[in-house]
């Protein structure tokens, strides 16, 4: 296949590590009445309005792997087109514009019109709809993203699209006859497979995990390229219906205290501290081994 069309679906997520402790326990409140409003008033999980958005770790890897696959194919004289989309509101625009500057030809967002935390079925329906709208031979997704993610979205998307799905993908390279050499992690360790398209690849703990950065000149050159917005209705998805079908709903959150008891080992010098550590805390345990 001379031309390969790659579509990457990625998630823009709140930076949960920056969340204030008090903002974790907001389930049951209408916590999504901010920029990413939830018209349905469905409990939206923690209060995340006040932290910045970041790319999901595995989604970022998927976006970079797609660029590297394009580059590797180009070295063989093969053409590749790239498209990216996110199920999100305008908060995704800055990420989508970055992708346009990096050489993605098309960028789109799918507006759900509702909070989708803890709603893998509805999310998958929208991702599948977006992927179908953008077309493509390969759909790349992140395996999972952040707290509360079920990890089942790629499977549900593949099922909806009727495509085979490989998960925990860590490397993608061109193979012959338009196929792909895909490395993924199985229980026994890394496995390499030759994969035909169309397919869904869910990226896991890849060594290449960070997205390259476009220059200001790249950004300027693609400034006028549009980000396309689809509504759920455009994709034929009834989000309310999908949410009603979700088998589980978030009813509450509580903070788990993961604090561990500790002591500060004292001593005037590192040698004193090491000695105290050994004598007081390690020696008896080691002797029991």
């Amino acid at each position, binding site marked *: 296949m001379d031309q390969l069309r790659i579509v990457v679906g990625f998630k823009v997520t709140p930076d949960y590590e920056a969340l*204030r402790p008090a903002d974790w326990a907001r389930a049951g409140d209408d916590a999504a009445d901010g920029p990413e409003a939830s018209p349905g008033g469905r409990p939206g999980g923690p209060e995340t309005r006040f*932290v910045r958005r970041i790319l999901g770790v595995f989604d970022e890897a998927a976006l970079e792997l797609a660029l590297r696959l394009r580059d590797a194919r180009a070295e063989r004289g093969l053409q590749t087109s790239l498209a990216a989309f996110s199920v999100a509101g305008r*908060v995704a625009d800055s990420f989508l514009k970055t992708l346009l500057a990096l050489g993605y030809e098309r960028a789109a967002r799918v507006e759900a019109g509702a909070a989708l935390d803890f709603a893998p079925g509805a999310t998958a329906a929208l991702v599948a709809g977006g992927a179908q709208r953008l077309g493509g031979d390969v759909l790349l997704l992140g395996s999972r993203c952040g707290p509360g993610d079920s990890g089942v979205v790629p499977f549900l998307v593949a099922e909806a699209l009727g495509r085979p799905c490989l998960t925990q993908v860590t490397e993608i390279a061109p193979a012959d006859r338009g196929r792909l050499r895909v490395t993924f992690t199985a229980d026994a360790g890394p496995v390499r497979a030759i994969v035909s398209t169309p397919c869904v690849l869910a990226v896991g703990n890849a060594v290449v995990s960070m997205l*390259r950065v*476009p220059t200001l000149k790249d950004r300027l050159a693609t400034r006028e390229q549009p980000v396309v917005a689809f509504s759920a209705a455009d994709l034929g998805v009834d989000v309310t219906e999908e949410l009603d079908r979700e088998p589980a709903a978030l009813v509450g959150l509580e903070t788990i205290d993961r604090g561990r008891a500790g002591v500060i080992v004292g001593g005037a010098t590192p040698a004193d501290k090491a000695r105290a550590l050994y004598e007081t805390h390690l020696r008896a345990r080691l002797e029991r081994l």
Partner: protein
Amino acid sequence: MSLSREAIVEGLRRIVGPDAVVTDERVLVESSVDNFRKLQNIFDVHTMPVPAAVALPGDAAQVAELLRFASDNGVAVIPRTGGTATEGGLESAVPDSVIIDGSMMNKIISVDPYNMQATCQCGVPLQALEDRVREHGLTTGHSPQSKPVAHMGGLVATRSIGQFSTLYGGIEDMVVGLEAVFPGGEIARIKNVPRRAAGPDIRHVVIGNEGALCFISEVTVKLFPYFPENNTFLGWTLKDMATGFAVLREVMVNGYKPSVARVYDPGDAGLHFSHFAAEDDCVLLFMAEGAAGIAKATADGIQAIVDKHPECTQVPSEYIETWFNDLCWDASKITAEDERIRQTRNVNRTTEISADWGSINDIYQTAKARIIAEIPDVTMMGGHSSHSYINGTNMYFNYFFNVVGVGPEEETEKYYLPIIGIICEETLRRGGSIVHHHGMGKARAPWVKDEYGSSYYILETLKKSFDPDGIMNPGTIIPL
């Protein structure tokens, strides 16, 4: 005749004992640079002369002996504590130098809540001192981003400033007394008093000397009551930096002392505030703190000033508070940044300057435009003002570039130094200072004569007087 490396090491061992002299090659190589050459560190490519040893003295007397040994034998020394320098001040510029590392001098000597001062040795991490004084309901008021990792000696040596400087001042406003060891082994102690008019204030010979004159062995700093419950956060978006500078000026001129007063340009704001600021928005923010009445009056006064600028759109305070609570570095953030650089070769650098209110916007606009036009592969060029005074403010240029077509060892020559050069030129042209709070190090030393003008005579005389053999951190502040 210069000593061999072996003889240097032997001499050091006689002074501080064999366990306090490090000659491990990996440690020495890493000790040849600081964060100025962070790309080289990340890729493990080292080009600077490797020091002969790292010596870890236990007290000022040992420091004195080390400096006497260095003076007698013409051995260059580089004073160091936490090692968080960013401007090349800890680089070994000459072969067979010795790092005098004060991190083992880490005792908090006293916390005096009545006289509101604390004394500690140079190797006490600021975070440790802050944690200790918090037990008394007090704070040092000093909070640079490096607080978890920087040590008191180095902070004083580089004229550090913290995020709350508009209220508490820079480190030079906090140090009431100190002890320093000079070449030849003279130990000088400046007593702790509220003020003095007994001639020149010689604290300022020591504060900011960057190890080029002496080794700071002990410092005493002021303490302040700590009222976190009164912290009040305020934030606005706006469309241009000129308005932001104007608001900062009004706040300062009207005598308000918010602990934090900042304006971010769109590029820099995009790194922190893209969840509420548009792509072309600047962000103006403040934190008022202190006793309840003071915090409220400060916040109310700032609110009234910004309300007179309809082009500023207020945002919920939680945005600012959440950002603020996640601001300091820690080891995991540093590790994550290093990994991002390793994978993407996209490097973040900063350069901070200061100038009066009449010049700061010109410097910002001109330097930014020149860097975008003249430097290749720039991916973000922005900055913020974060430390304001009645007569002016600082500009903290924050920029990223991709390292393309050169190895890590050439990054400074191709990108970093040319950018620093543009910023220094535009700052000096308008009468500003080329260094606001990172120190001159070796990176900006080439501009020292332009920075000082006719007062360079004073600096040069200090150097010649206190360090006649030129052993103290050669190349720092004054170039080789």
